[in-house]
């Protein structure tokens, strides 16, 4: 087993979850209706829990403890895709991101639930069960607002067009791609993207939203190799405010 390949895989998964978890949590207290406030807050809790479970595996492989990994790295050390770090704008933006991301996340966990590595397989199987509720939530709202009023359809379409290039950046291939596939650790980003695109099309085609051909969208890569927008550093500073003031604080 190539340790560096496995670590890179785990880092990108957990970093995506941690950062999107924090973005989701920014709706706590501000959701457009109570149930949605609760939904985004719950998904935030789930996602941060999921990141912890994968950071724990990294810790078992000799990396720092989960708190240090989560709060004391610089943005260039994060392997999350840029999709998850973009600041929330309106609710349509957060819903579309949630839909595009969680559709991929569920498929990624399904693939990893067949991994040759026991500890990855076990954690992925568990996370997969919980994620069903995230995609359920996303699909419900996509269908509601994507078939809703002129205004809701317009807002969702704008968010979809804006986020598709970033969503495609989720599947930026790793330098270890071949290694992971060959050793049956992970089926690879290409297969994942195809599964994702199928699911995305199915839902979007049941709405009044319009998808272009996949090759007609530009692609924003970079996140997986530590290239980020400035938004990530701002978010990390906010997340690590307490630990930076008092590294041993307990609460």
């Amino acid at each position, binding site marked *: 087993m190539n340790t560096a390949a496995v670590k890179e895989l785990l880092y990108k998964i957990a970093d995506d979850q941690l950062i999107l978890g924090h973005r989701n949590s920014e709706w706590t207290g501000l959701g457009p209706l109570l149930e949605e406030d*609760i939904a985004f807050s719950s998904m935030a809790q*789930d996602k*941060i*829990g*999921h990141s*912890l479970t994968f950071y724990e595996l990294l810790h078992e492989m000799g990396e720092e403890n989960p708190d240090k990994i989560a709060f004391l790295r610089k943005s260039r050390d994060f392997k999350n895709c840029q999709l998850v770090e973009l600041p929330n704008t309106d609710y349509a933006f957060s819903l579309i991101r949630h839909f595009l991301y969680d559709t991929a996340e569920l498929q990624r966990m399904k693939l990893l639930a067949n991994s040759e590595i026991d500890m990855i397989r*076990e*954690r992925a199987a568990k996370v997969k069960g919980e994620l069903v509720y995230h995609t359920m939530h996303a*699909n*419900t709202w996509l269908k509601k607002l994507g078939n809703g009023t002129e205004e809701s359809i317009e807002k969702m379409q704008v968010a979809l067009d804006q986020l598709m290039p970033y969503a495609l950046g989720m599947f930026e291939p790793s330098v270890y791609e071949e290694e992971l596939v060959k050793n049956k650790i992970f089926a690879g980003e290409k297969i994942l993207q195809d599964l994702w695109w199928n699911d995305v099309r199915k839902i979007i085609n049941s709405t009044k939203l319009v998808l272009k051909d996949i090759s007609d969208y530009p692609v924003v890569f970079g996140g997986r190799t530590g290239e980020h927008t400035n938004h990530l550093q701002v978010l990390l500073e906010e997340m690590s405010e307490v630990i930076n003031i008092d590294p041993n604080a307990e609460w």
Partner: protein
Amino acid sequence: MKSYSETEVLNLLKKVMDPEIPVLSLVDLGVITKIEFFKDKGVTVFMRPTFIGCPALHQMKQDIETRLYGEGFDQVDVKIVHTPAWTSDEISEEGRIALKKYGYAPPPKNALIEDIDILENVPCPYCDGINTELKSPFGPTLCRSLHYCRDCREAFQQIKPLS
């Protein structure tokens, strides 16, 4: 201190309730996976989370410690484990009855949770009718969803099925 068997410790833990669901013990919730004894008065309790991100986990740990220290153990270790993973089928029959009595619909058993349908028409814990609707898959805690019964016009919660 008298010496305890695993069953006796489990019986003690039947008095430690889920911090969010006061009628359901941690044993009936199915999160305690193993008990081990060490030295004269040491005990290790292996516990797994329901939902991975459950923030009540630390409270559960403390409640177990308080209970067992109170019984005379001089070292109580609660170890969080991830395998075998918890599923909602692990809730005991006794636990399911307690949940329903409390007004929470127990999760369907052996559910294949692939679609939203699983959460529609959940039997109402008050009137047993199935003329109910899902209001949201996310409720006050990670493990509960929100429902409404059109027959008896009561809002209720379900413990979410999890596979």
